[in-house]
């Protein structure tokens, strides 16, 4: 677990580079909410295993920098409380707790969660939004904002340059902006077998193939495959959210199907849905199918094939 926490540090550092102290405040709020909930209602001592901390950091990383800390805290509480403990704690939950926390925030605070602070043109140490606002009070600070690449794409048909998407100097959630850092951290986790590489691979291949095909058909209407891959929360979701071991299939064949399903849903929501981004819902929907996928993709026992052939 602590290795996964370690692998999130570079991403958090990148987020801090772009969003200043706000990145740390938002992540701290979400992490605190998650860990405190686990400590209060989880199995005794379970909060020390690091998994609640991962949930909290991941939740923080998919929130905008200007989010008030207390909202992030509430998201962490909901994610762990309803997403994990209600199911019986570690290993028992169906849905990714971080994403469930985010889905709750999206429903509860639709404005705050879609207010994207600007990356450039502000002093590094300045807060990017009302991070320190008191619960249920109005906004204190008026910060410069910008649209996300996917929002620009969807509503204004403007494509952001690939280079800035890869480095991360674009608007968006804390952890989703820099593609390069996510890929490096994901590669490390895959090598250490903390995540099943088949899941991000199948998601990204599906999205790339589908987006490429659509782009070929109508380049003016549909964005290119690289843009689809590097924008929004796709990489963060594919590498860190979909690969949550508890809520992804145990079999490798199941992992491929799971990933392809997420990829399909992401393209579907991004292009034809009402929202600019669909990674969160795509993963949550596929989470619900994991028990069935596990059942359908049981491994074939050694010697079973031949037995059928001869019998």
């Amino acid at each position, binding site marked *: 677990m602590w290795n996964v926490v370690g692998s999130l540090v570079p991403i958090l550092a990148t987020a801090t580079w772009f969003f200043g102290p706000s990145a740390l405040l938002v992540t701290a709020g979400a992490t605190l909410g998650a860990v405190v909930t686990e400590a209060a209602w989880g199995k005794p001592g379970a909060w020390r*295993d690091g998994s609640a901390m991962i949930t909290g950091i991941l939740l923080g990383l998919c929130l905008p920098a200007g989010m008030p800390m207390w909202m992030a805290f509430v998201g962490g509480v909901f994610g762990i409380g309803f997403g994990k403990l209600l199911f019986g704690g570690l290993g028992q939950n169906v849905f990714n707790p971080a994403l469930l926390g985010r889905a709750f925030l999206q429903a509860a605070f639709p404005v705050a969660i879609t207010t994207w602070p600007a990356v450039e043109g502000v002093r590094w140490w300045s807060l990017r939004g009302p991070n320190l606002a008191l619960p249920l009070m109005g906004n204190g600070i008026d910060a410069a904002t910008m649209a996300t690449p996917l929002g620009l794409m969807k509503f204004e048909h403007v494509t952001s340059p690939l280079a800035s998407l890869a480095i991360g100097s674009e608007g968006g959630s804390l952890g989703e902006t820099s593609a390069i850092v996510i890929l490096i951290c994901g590669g490390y986790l895959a090598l250490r077998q903390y995540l099943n590489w088949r899941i991000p691979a199948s998601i990204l291949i599906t999205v790339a193939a589908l987006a490429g095909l659509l782009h070929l058909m109508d380049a003016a209407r549909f964005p290119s495959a690289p843009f689809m891959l590097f924008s929004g929360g796709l990489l963060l979701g594919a590498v860190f959210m979909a690969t949550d*071991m508890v809520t992804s299939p145990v079999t*490798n064949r199941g992992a491929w199907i799971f990933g392809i399903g997420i990829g399909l849903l992401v393209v579907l929501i991004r292009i034809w849905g009402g929202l600019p981004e669909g990674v969160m819902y795509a993963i949550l929907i596929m989470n619900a199918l994991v028990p069935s996928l596990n059942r359908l993709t049981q491994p074939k*026992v*050694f010697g*079973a094939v031949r*037995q059928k052939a001869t019998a």
Partner: protein
Amino acid sequence: MVETGGEVQLSIGASFRHGVHPPELKQLTAQVKIRRLPFPAEVVLPLSQHTGKPARPVVRPGNRVERGDLIAEADGWVSSPVHASASGTVTDIGLSPHPDGTFKPAIRIAVEPWSGQIPRPRLVPAWEALTPKELIEAIRGAGVVGLGGAAFPTHVKLSPPKEKPIDHVIVNGCECEPYLTTDHRSMVEYPERVHLGVRIMMRCLGVGRVVIGVERNKPDAIEALERTRPADLDVTVMPLTVKYPQGAEKMLISAVTGREVPSGKLPMDVGVLVQNAASVATIAEVFETGLPLIERIVTVTGLGVRRPSNLIVPVGTRLGDLLEACGGLTDDAREIVFGGPMMGASQADLDTPLTKGTTGVVVLAAHEVREQASYPCIHCGHCLDACPVFLNPQHLGKLAGVGRYDEMVAHHLNDCMLCGSCSYVCPSNIPLSQQFAAAKMALRQRKPAA
């Protein structure tokens, strides 16, 4: 070259799919010459040292026996006789600790001090002159069983039913369990015996071709077998990938022949017989010396023992006597295991005797024994990638946890050979293999009642 750490294995050999790579730790005894253990003061010979029915004693307390005398006869076809492993007086026939953790009937012999331990003069059968049937009868009479752990009576294996002819004999020289070097040293020091045993088995079965499978981490064994191979014998020494459990029968057959033993069936169903290297050498020994199986080679090793050794040990030697001969335990010795650390069984009593099937004694030091709590399953799926027979240990473990044993059978519990690969890779430290062993035991005990 490839020895010691065994981490860098660039050469690709024949193998099977899945499996794990535990540290080999064989360097403690891999180069240690086999020596003979002095006769202990007492030997304890369990009547059940093999798969099948226990033997029936033919001696009574007070009887004097010479080394090599029959003391218990086979009870039926799938059974095996037991012979005195030292000269002395039978003192008792009663319960004694058994390596499987229970108490089982055993014959105790107080070994005669100062005895020459010279067996009675006997006729050594000239194997060339015997028919296959007579050969098998001689092997049966000598109490030969597989020395790889399960101790299945060899004569049963050598007499397959007519409708299942054997066309392949594989000598198992993999020894994939960490620490153990019993087969390794047998192959290095007695390669001629292995070849003679092969010859006799070929005669018994009418098979023309034999493959000796050896993991690549034993280059000296491969070299010794190649060097001593008789020109007229069609024997191939096949180097195999170092991977656990390469030495499991079904895995070895798949690596050597590409055949897959059907679920629930035996190697003979695909025309293959597998015999472990030390057992093959024992067959040769029977026809060299005329003596039955009364001693075997045992590796005593581990960081918890002062003088790791490969020993020739009389069957029935008690664990305590054996450890004493190896310099005793170190201060941080924590756990004693019969067999290897992956599949072996922990021992609680220093009076437990070694049986014919004891491949080694591993004494683990405190820092090698993990006493961590286990955590909930996080569905990482690593156990599925490790299982050599393609089970879903994660699901089986879940069922075992709630005692739904019948459902476990539906999920192929019977195909599990308890190799321990799943427990080894589990990041949550769940004792999967142990749970499966318990489930199997519970189902076995339930069966007669139902």
